[in-house]
């Protein structure tokens, strides 16, 4: 049964993926944090050095020649690795480059802090991207030097770095998942073979064993599995052999008994009436006993799995007629026209047993067989069998109480016995119909029981004319 809970493989793979994700994210975040801090510090240092240098130039110029501040600002080295714009705030007036007006874009908090005569640094967002502004007091004039540096390139570098790390983390996670799938499949491969072997055993192939395992962890499992299977097999075989041996051993004394009874029966006219009656009882029971032993031996062969089906082309109607009439002791068989000379590939001995057992069943439990009908039909008209298969159908009808509701499946089980119709009728051990079921199944056919109106039962056997 499948549950919603993921399987062992799924869980192992997921664990691998989560592990890979965690490690890669941790690595990426740490690396990013260190790298960005380092790059930012480097940049701040550079821009600060430039700003201090430029601020000194402006300070000197204000003290000595006092040229127009605007001209001075135009001449300042304001490359700073990247574009920067120098500004000077003097006595409440902003001086700035002609084509780089900028004081209006400075954050007000920064401007306020700058006018207090303290050096200030602040990062802020502009329309052109991230920027950093540095304010330095001009001691000579009491003004403030401000330089705004673009951080766009650095920002782009960091964005690229972040994207790279995200990509790497994603890929690592995916690789982790794949690795998990591969590793789990590899490490669970022995488990797959265990599953296959267990399924084979459940199917009845008790000889299945696991091969030698190189892995120490799995060797124990394989060993335990093989030992369990071996013991199961030994036990099943012992049971089957026991039944077979017992029945086999019983056959020797039975042969003596059957023949002895026969010899005495041939001389029955020399016996007095009472002895003759006792002899009849003895003969009946000896034959019944012989049949039971035969049935037991037969069923134990099914259990031991030593079944050999010997199919040969057979005129099924003639076979049924001969066997059914012989078993019933009178003519009971009706062959329909379409079944005349119908040739089936079947194991004659097994079909003989099927017919015998069904007729005998009708006599014991059905108050006597009323009719055995043989006909030909095409399976597939009713559900269950393969379509368009020619099948021979044998119906054995009786006049008994019919099949009890709900018992129609159970009567084909072993040792399930219906009530004898009349007391005193010899009864079987309840293997007759079970054997019918097994024999018919071997031929790829089916058997079922149905009630007849107004009373009685009909046992129907369908056997494909050609083996599948």
């Amino acid at each position, binding site marked *: 049964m499948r549950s919603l809970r993921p399987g062992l493989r799924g869980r192992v793979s997921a664990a691998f993926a989560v592990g890979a994700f965690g490690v890669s994210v941790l690595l990426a975040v740490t690396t990013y944090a260190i790298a960005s801090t380092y790059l930012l510090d480097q940049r701040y240092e550079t821009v600060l050095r430039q700003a201090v240098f430029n601020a000194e130039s402006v300070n000197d110029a204000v003290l000595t020649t006092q040229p127009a501040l605007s001209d001075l600002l135009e001449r300042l080295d304001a490359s700073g690795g990247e574009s920067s714009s120098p500004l000077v705030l003097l006595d409440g007036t902003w001086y700035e480059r002609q084509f780089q007006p900028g004081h209006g874009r400075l954050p007000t908090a920064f401007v306020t802090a700058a006018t207090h005569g303290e050096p200030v640094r602040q990062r802020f967002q502009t329309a052109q991207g991230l920027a950093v502004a540095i304010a330095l007091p001009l001691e000579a004039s009491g003004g403030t030097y401000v330089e705004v540096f673009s951080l766009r390139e650095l920002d782009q570098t960091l964005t690229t770095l972040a994207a790279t790390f995200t990509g790497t983390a994603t890929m690592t996670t995916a690789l982790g998942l794949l690795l998990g799938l591969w590793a789990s499949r590899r490490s669970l491969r022995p488990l797959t073979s265990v599953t296959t072997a267990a399924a084979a055993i459940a199917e009845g192939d008790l000889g299945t064993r696991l091969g030698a395992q190189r892995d120490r962890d799995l060797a124990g499992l394989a060993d335990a599995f093989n030992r369990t299977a071996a013991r199961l097999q030994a036990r099943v075989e012992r049971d089957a052999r026991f039944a077979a041996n017992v029945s*086999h051993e019983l*056959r*020797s*004394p*039975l*042969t*003596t008994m*059957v*023949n*002895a009874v*026969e*010899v005495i029966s*041939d001389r029955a006219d020399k016996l007095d009436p009472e002895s003759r009656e006792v002899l009849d009882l003895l003969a009946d029971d000896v034959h019944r006993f*012989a049949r039971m032993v035969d049935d037991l031996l037969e069923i134990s062969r099914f259990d031991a799995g030593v079944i*050999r089906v*010997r199919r*040969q*082309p*057979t005129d099924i109607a*003639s*076979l049924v007629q*001969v066997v059914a009439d012989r078993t019933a002791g009178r003519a009971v068989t009706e062959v329909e026209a379409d079944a005349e000379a119908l040739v089936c590939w079947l*194991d*004659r*001995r097994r079909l*003989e047993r099927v017919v015998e057992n069904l007729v005998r069943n009708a006599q014991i439990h059905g108050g006597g067989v009323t009719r055995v009908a043989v006909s030909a039909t095409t399976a597939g008209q009713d559900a269950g069998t393969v379509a368009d298969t020619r099948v021979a159908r044998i119906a054995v009808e009786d006049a008994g109480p019919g099949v009890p509701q709900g018992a129609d499946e159970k009567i084909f089980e072993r040792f399930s016995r219906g009530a004898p119709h009349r007391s005193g009728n010899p009864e079987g051990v309840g293997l007759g119909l079970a054997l019918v079921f097994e024999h018919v199944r071997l031929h790829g056919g089916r058997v079922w029981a149905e009630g007849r109106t107004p009373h009685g039962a009909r046992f129907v056997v369908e056997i494909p004319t050609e083996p599948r």
Partner: protein
Amino acid sequence: MLVEDDERIRRVLDIALRGEGYRVMQAGAGAPALAKLAEVPADVVVLDLMLPDIDGFEVCRRLRRTSDVPVIVISARGDSHDVVAGLEAGADDYMIKPVVAKELSARIRALLRRSRGNEPTSANTVAGDLEVRPGEGVVLRGGEPVQLTTTELRLLEELAERVGAVVRRETLLERVWGYDFFGDSRLVDVHVSRLRSKIEDDPGNPRHVVTVRGLGYKLAP
């Protein structure tokens, strides 16, 4: 001759068969059976395949070296290889345990009927280099007599009677083995292959006794 290791079964079958009018010799193992048969020839040998000393197959093979006596083997199981192996070892017919005297008696009668040659004599038949003379119970191959067992001879005679025509396995079972219905077609198949090994140049590629698939056999004219 009744060869059976279980003494009680042997004794009861002895009584039963004597009741049917046969004279019965007994042996409980293979070696004494062969020794006895060398002294007193039997008309039919009933042979259990499971014997304490030499197994039944070997007894059958040794018997065949010197004798054409009809042999019925008793096998524990009908669907086992025992039956085919027994027939290949030279047995004429088989029975499945438990053996019931009446059935055994019927099989013996069928074999004896054959071996005594009560059949109406029909004309001699020539097929290729083969000549079948039912009246004399002789088969000549290229003018030389061929040593056949009773069953092989009867089989060939049946085919010769309708030379060129297909004879169904069922017909052969009925006419050669005396089965009223549903005999075992392995009887026919094994005996045909034994017959071929004696009368064909290449038994794997027979020219005289030809298989007609699904039906039976025919003797090619």
